[in-house]
Structure formats: structure tokens, C-alpha cells
């Protein structure tokens, strides 16, 4: 049956990973659709109109699921993690409220105008509503990542012994947390990578299917725009990820040690591309080991010292002891067997899969750009695989990145401040958490099947033929709307 802590953690993992399958697609695609729409308004070239409508539909099919699963996220803190909410709500709640007020209203309201605005809103304003939606999604990312960065590296708070909770001392510090300043570009650029990759993959598949038809140049445009976005963004993801690694080594050294399963403190620490065997410090055989690379990733110097898990365990225990003494057992409890390490194989493999899938996306995007230059059409049937894999790879890379970041923080809920075991809701029974877990999982699974089927149906259908929207301009009062539910 498990404890309600275990089930609540699984539930958070399932609902968050699921939610985040749709989030980067939403952020990335809304930007590219806004670009297509603006190009249509500027040039009135039919291909842009068709691409706006086509990818707009795919965007909306995806957006619906991102939206509904996001509501669950906001309520889950109170439902399953009420002691966490009590302890850090004074700090953590503010970015969530800002997110709703500044971001959710903006994206929801203007997306409504965009969807129903065809023929009812002046065209320049209409294109700008998709930009406003896009800005809303990026603002939303900023605030929720500020909240998450507080959990990785709490700043801008003081402990108030009278109220027994952490309280805000500096909101600007929370919003400009150094973890946040590098996580935000990393995550948003990853989202552009996903958005570009979805558009490139879908375009590539249709380009190959419809080669030689009038639609060929339209889909080539999609491939090239998507590939440029994915490629440029992926370079940014690498650069920001590199900076992030160094900051992580500084503020969460255990996470970096776990990423390499590095047990003993080393200077000139190597990075293994793969390894075989248990990663418990005894018998693993490293394959393709690059000397000094981990030191470089963590410190910027090949001779830099990276602390190992064995030494860090001692540091972490002292940290937990200090917090438990200072703030009491409601905030931090000592972990049994002094096991202050995250699950090492999970950290080790998710770190590699994140990077590996990201690099593959980058290579695919570069290949697609090369093969479609000067009106080229990719000929080999292997390109079908590239088309299918390109959207999936960066989405999965995003998931692994988050699993790494969140599981690498364990056993802490707020790093160095609150342990995960103390955050769970005391008044909620394990049965109740099970019920909600089963309900979410079933509902989400069913919706995933429906979503993917619908998405593929619309992909196969391709872009609708061009219809001059200005023909509707002088329609009478009773003429049908250009869009209705």
C-alpha cells in the first residue's frame, strides 16, 4: 500500500511529468504560430495563412491538455503537501499568485480572442493576440521556475520562530535567484527547441508524403522554420545548461556527484558517457571516459575539484541535523541510515538521456536544414524516422531533465531547509491519495490516447487549401462565422 508520502510523491511525479509533456510544446509552438501569423499579415502570402491555420490547430489540440493538467498542479500543493504549503507558503505562494494574475489571464484571454477572432478582429490585432498568448506562456514559466528555484536553492527568506515558518525577506532575491536566472533560459530555450522540433517533424513528414505537389514549398517552409528554431534554441540550451552545471555544483554539489555517480572527491574528475554494472561505487565499468570533463562541467576547469558522494553524505547529514535542531521535527527529520543521496542510477541515467536526446535533436535539425536547402526534398525513407523522432526526442529530454533535477534534490523538499518527508498532508489518508492517484492516472491515460489520435488525424489531413479570408469581409449579418465551436 505504501505510505501517503510515497504515493503523494508518485502522484506529483506522474502529474508533473505528464503536464510537462504539453508545456514546452505550448510555449514553443505559440511563438512559431505567432511568427507565421505575423508573416501572413505582413506579406499576405497564402503559404503563411495556411501554416498559421494548420499549426494553430495542432497547437490548440495540445494546449487543451496542458491547460487542464496545469489546474491540478496548482491545487496539488494544498491537497497533498499541506505542511509544505504552511511552511513556505509565505514565499512560495507569491510567485504562484503572480503567475495566475500576470500570465494565466493574459494567455487564456487572448488565446480565446485568437481562436474566435478570424474575421471578427482586425488582422494586425489578431496576429498580436497570439504574441500576447505566447508572452503569457513565457511569463508563466518565469514565475513557476522562480518558485521551483526556491526549492533548489532557497534565498530571500528568514525563519520566524513565532510563526514557526519560513517568511519572505526579499522578493527580488526570490525572483532573481541565481539558480532561477540560469534555469529560466535553459527551460524556455528547451521549449523553443520542442516547438521548433514539432513543426519541423510534422513538416518533414508531410513534405515527403506530398513531394512534387503544390504543397511541397509550404511544408518545406515549415521544416526550415522549425529546424532553425530548434537548432538555434538547442545551442542556447547547451550554453545555459553548461552554466547551470556550474551553479548546481556550487549550490547542490550532491546532485552533480550523483549525476556522475562520483563516490570519491576528485580533481580532474572524469565524465563517463556510459557505464555497465551497479552504480553503487563498487563495480561499475565506465565506457568512453573523458578525463577531467566532469571537473570542467562542474567548475569550468579540468583540474577543478568535484566533491564525491561519500564526503557529501557527511556534509548533508550535518545540514539536516542543523535544520532539525533549529526548526524542529515539523520541518526536517533525519533520514534513516544516513542516506542523504538521491537514487544514483536515476540521476546518472536521466542526466545522460537528457543530453543525448537533446544533441540528437540538434543533429536532426541541422540535417533537415542541409537537405532542404535550395528547394531540396529529403529522398531516403530514413527521413520518415527523423520526422517521427524529432518531435519526441526533445520532449523526452525535457522530462528526463526534470526527473534529474527533482530527484537529484532528494531527500530534500527545499534544499537544506525542509525534508520531503515533512511536507506531506497530515490530514489526508493514504487511501485518499491512492484514490486521487488512480483517478488522475486513468483520466490522463485516456486523454493521452484521445489527444495523440486527434493530433495524428490532423497531421495526416495536412494544411487546408488556401481560401482568401477577405472574401468574407463584406458578408451580411446572417453569414456564417469563420470559426465556431
Amino acid at each position, binding site marked *: 500500500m505504501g505510505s501517503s508520502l510515497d504515493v503523494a510523491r508518485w502522484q506529483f511525479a506522474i502529474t508533473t511529468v505528464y503536464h510537462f509533456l504539453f508545456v514546452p510544446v505550448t510555449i514553443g509552438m505559440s511563438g512559431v504560430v505567432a511568427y507565421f501569423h505575423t508573416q501572413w499579415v505582413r506579406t499576405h502570402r497564402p503559404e503563411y495563412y495556411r501554416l498559421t491555420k494548420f499549426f494553430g490547430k495542432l497547437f490548440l489540440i495540445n494546449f487543451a491538455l496542458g491547460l487542464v493538467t496545469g489546474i491540478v498542479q496548482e*491545487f496539488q500543493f494544498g*491537497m497533498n503537501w*499541506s505542511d509544505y504549503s504552511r511552511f513556505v507558503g509565505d514565499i512560495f*505562494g507569491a510567485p504562484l*499568485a503572480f503567475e495566475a494574475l500576470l500570465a494565466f489571464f493574459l494567455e487564456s484571454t487572448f488565446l480565446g480572442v485568437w481562436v474566435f477572432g478570424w474575421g*471578427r478582429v482586425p488582422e494586425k490585432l489578431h496576429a498580436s493576440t497570439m504574441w500576447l498568448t505566447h508572452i503569457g506562456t513565457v511569463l508563466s514559466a518565469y514565475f513557476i521556475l522562480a518558485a521551483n528555484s526556491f526549492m533548489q536553492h532557497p534565498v530571500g527568506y528568514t525563519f520566524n520562530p513565532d510563526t514557526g515558518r519560513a517568511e519572505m525577506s526579499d522578493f527580488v532575491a526570490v525572483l532573481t535567484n541565481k539558480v532561477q536566472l540560469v534555469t529560466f533560459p535553459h527551460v524556455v530555450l528547451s521549449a523553443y527547441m520542442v516547438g521548433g522540433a514539432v513543426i519541423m517533424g510534422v513538416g518533414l513528414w508531410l513534405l515527403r508524403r506530398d513531394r512534387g505537389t503544390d504543397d511541397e514549398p509550404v511544408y518545406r517552409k515549415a521544416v526550415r522554420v522549425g529546424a532553425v528554431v530548434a537548432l538555434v534554441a538547442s545551442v542556447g540550451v547547451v550554453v545555459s545548461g553548461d552554466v547551470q552545471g556550474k551553479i548546481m555544483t556550487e549550490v547542490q554539489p550532491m546532485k552533480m556527484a550523483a549525476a556522475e555517480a562520483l563516490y570519491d572527491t576528485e580533481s580532474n574528475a572524469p565524465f563517463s558517457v556510459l557505464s555497465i554494472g551497479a552504480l553503487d561505487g563498487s563495480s561499475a565499468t565506465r565506457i568512453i571516459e573523458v578525463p577531467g570533463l566532469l571537473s570542467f562541467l562542474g567548475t569550468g576547469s579540468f583540474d577543478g575539484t568535484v566533491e564525491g558522494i561519500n564526503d557529501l553524505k557527511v556534509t548533508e547529514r550535518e545540514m539536516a541535523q542543523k535544520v532539525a535542531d533549529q526548526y524542529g521535527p515539523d520541518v526536517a527529520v533525519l533520514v534513516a541510515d544516513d542516506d542523504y543521496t538521491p537514487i544514483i542510477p536515476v540521476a546518472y541515467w536521466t542526466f545522460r538521456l537528457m543530453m543525448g536526446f537533446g544533441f540528437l535533436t540538434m543533429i536532426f535539425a541541422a540535417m533537415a536544414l542541409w537537405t532542404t536547402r535550395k528547394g531540396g526534398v529529403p529522398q531516403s525513407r530514413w527521413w520518415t524516422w527523423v520526422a517521427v523522432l524529432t518531435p519526441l526526442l526533445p520532449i523526452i529530454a525535457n522530462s528526463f531533465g526534470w526527473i534529474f533535477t527533482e530527484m537529484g534534490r532528494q531527500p530534500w523538499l527545499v534544499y537544506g531547509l525542509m525534508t520531503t518527508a515533512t511536507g506531506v498532508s497530515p490530514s489526508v489518508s493514504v487511501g485518499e491519495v491512492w484514490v486521487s492517484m488512480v483517478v488522475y492516472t486513468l483520466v490522463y491515460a485516456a486523454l493521452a490516447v484521445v489527444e495523440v489520435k486527434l493530433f495524428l488525424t490532423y497531421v495526416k489531413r495536412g494544411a487546408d487549401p488556401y481560401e482568401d479570408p477577405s472574401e468574407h469581409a463584406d458578408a451580411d449579418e446572417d453569414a*456564417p462565422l469563420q470559426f465556431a465551436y
Partner: protein
Amino acid sequence: MDTLQLVWFGLIGLLWAGYLVLEGFDFGVGALLPALGAGRDAVETEKRRRVMLTTIGPHWDGNEVWLLTAGGATFAAFPEWYATMFSAFYLPLLLVLVALIVRNMGFEYRGKRDDDTWRARWDWAIIGGSVVAPFLVGVALTNVVHGVPLDGDSEYTGNLFTLLNPLSLLGGLTVLALSLTHGAFFLALKTTGTIREDARRMGTTLGLVAAGLAVVTLLWLGVSTGSVWSWVTTVIAAGALLGAIFANTKRREGWAFVGTAVTAAMAVATYFLALYPDVMPSSLTGGRSLTIENASSSPLTLKIMTGAALVFTPIVLLYTAYTYYTFRKRIGTQHIPAAVAVK
């Protein structure tokens, strides 16, 4: 009690009022899909349903953000209230979330295939979600005001059935009936042709049912925890609802809709005035009630939040008003385009 604590108690009330006023009508429209969507034949039925859904199409998503903002603002301004309320109402909230999920998916996906079975399934998602969500929101809010068992640490000690007490169930029915009336008046205001006539006729009946339920709920609540001010808002709520029904019978559709909007807002005001100075009273002797004072955030957090609310709420209201202005035109079955050619 600090001024800012009081301000935020009021603002949370305002957010809930905004939620019930705005999403209230789109809940109503969704729930009335079978009753007002029925035409003489299958073709007309489908067109009528699409008219109804299109009237709320540009707005429902923005309306729902009021709930998310109410949740987020409660988290930021009253973390203890958020923590206790959301963990206490665990299973009802789960149902609300599932109701909102399937309903929103229904709006977005229903028209994406030209297939009767597909549409019928999403219709049930929309109808079910639009009935269950306002009912349970009403149950939850009534429980907050009426009091639930909280122990000495303000932890909830009841179970699901504690929440399903007669007063709270009545509160749930009241919110549902009010949403249905509000939705009918919205449809009468936003449509042309026979839907408009049917919505107006049905609105009067629904309004009378809502008035009956609301009077009993508010009197019950008023007698048990009311204050002078909550009686004032109760009277305004009742007056606005009767005025709305009267305006409706006189074919003044705009005034009828304003009337139910005022009713919903004043009903929430009554709840919050009855709640004051608690935010979540304990029904147990020896239990620790959550109050505006002991559940609130630190002065600094409240100050930051106040600044944000002062700057951004007017902006949100402005662009929200713009969308209602943009889509102000009445819609009839003649405006419905052909179904999308996707099986």
C-alpha cells in the same frame, strides 16, 4: 488585525465573486446543453448546441482563471487557509478538478471531428462537468463558512461525509441553480431566434427555483453565523434575483443578466461577511479556528501582493472587458458554419 490582512480577506472574496459571476454563466450554459440545445430534429439540435457553446467559447478559459487566481492568492496571502482547506476538501476537490478537466477538453475537442458518437461523448463531459463543478464549489464554500472539524493544530479531522451535511448540500444546490439561471439569462442576451425565446422562458422558472434555494440557504447561514452586514447583502442578493426575474419577464435581457451577476456577487459577499473574522472556523470545541489574523502571510508578502494586485487587476479587467466587447454580437443557428470535415 492589520489593514492589509483585511484587504486580502476582501480580495479573496472578490476573486470568488468574480469566479461565480463569470464562470457561473458558462457553467449554466454547459449544463443547459440538453434542455436548451434540443431542436426539432438532429440537425437543428446540433446547430443549437453549437450556438450555445460558441457564446461562451471566447470566454470560458479566461473565466476559469478567476478560480486559479483565487487559489493562488489564498496560497500567497493565507498559506494556512490554503493548506487546511485544500487538504480538508480532498475528495470533493478531486471531483471538481476532474469535472473541469473533462469539461474543458469537451469544449476544445467536441467540434474537432464530424462524428455523432464523438460529439455525444464530449457533450456528456461538458454537461456532467458543468453540473458537478458548481455544485461541489457550493458545497465547499458553504462548509468553509459553516465550519468543519479542525483539531488543535487546525488539521481537518472529518471525512468525506462530514462535508456532505444538509446545509452544505443545500449551498451546493443553490450555487448550481444560480449558475443555471445566470447561464439562461446569458444565452437570452447573446443569441437570436428560438434559443433566445426558450432561454428566457426557462430562465424565469430556473430563477424562481434558485430564489427559493438561495433564501433558505442564506437565512440558515445568517441565523447560525450571520452579522448585520451579511443580512444587508442577503437582502441585496434576494432583491437582485427577484429584479432579474422581473426584468427577464419584461424582456430586458441585459438587466436580467446584471441582476443574476449581482446576486452571485452578493451571495459570496454574504458568505465572507458571515465568515469574518474567521477564514475557516472549527466546529470542534477546543479546535483551533483559522482567522484572518492567524492564517495570513507576513506583512511583507501582503505588501508585495497588494502592489501587484493594484497594478495588474485593472489591466486584467480592461482586457477582459475588451473581449466581451469584441464578441458582443448575438449568435443564431444561421451563423453556424459547416462541421469540420474530419471523421
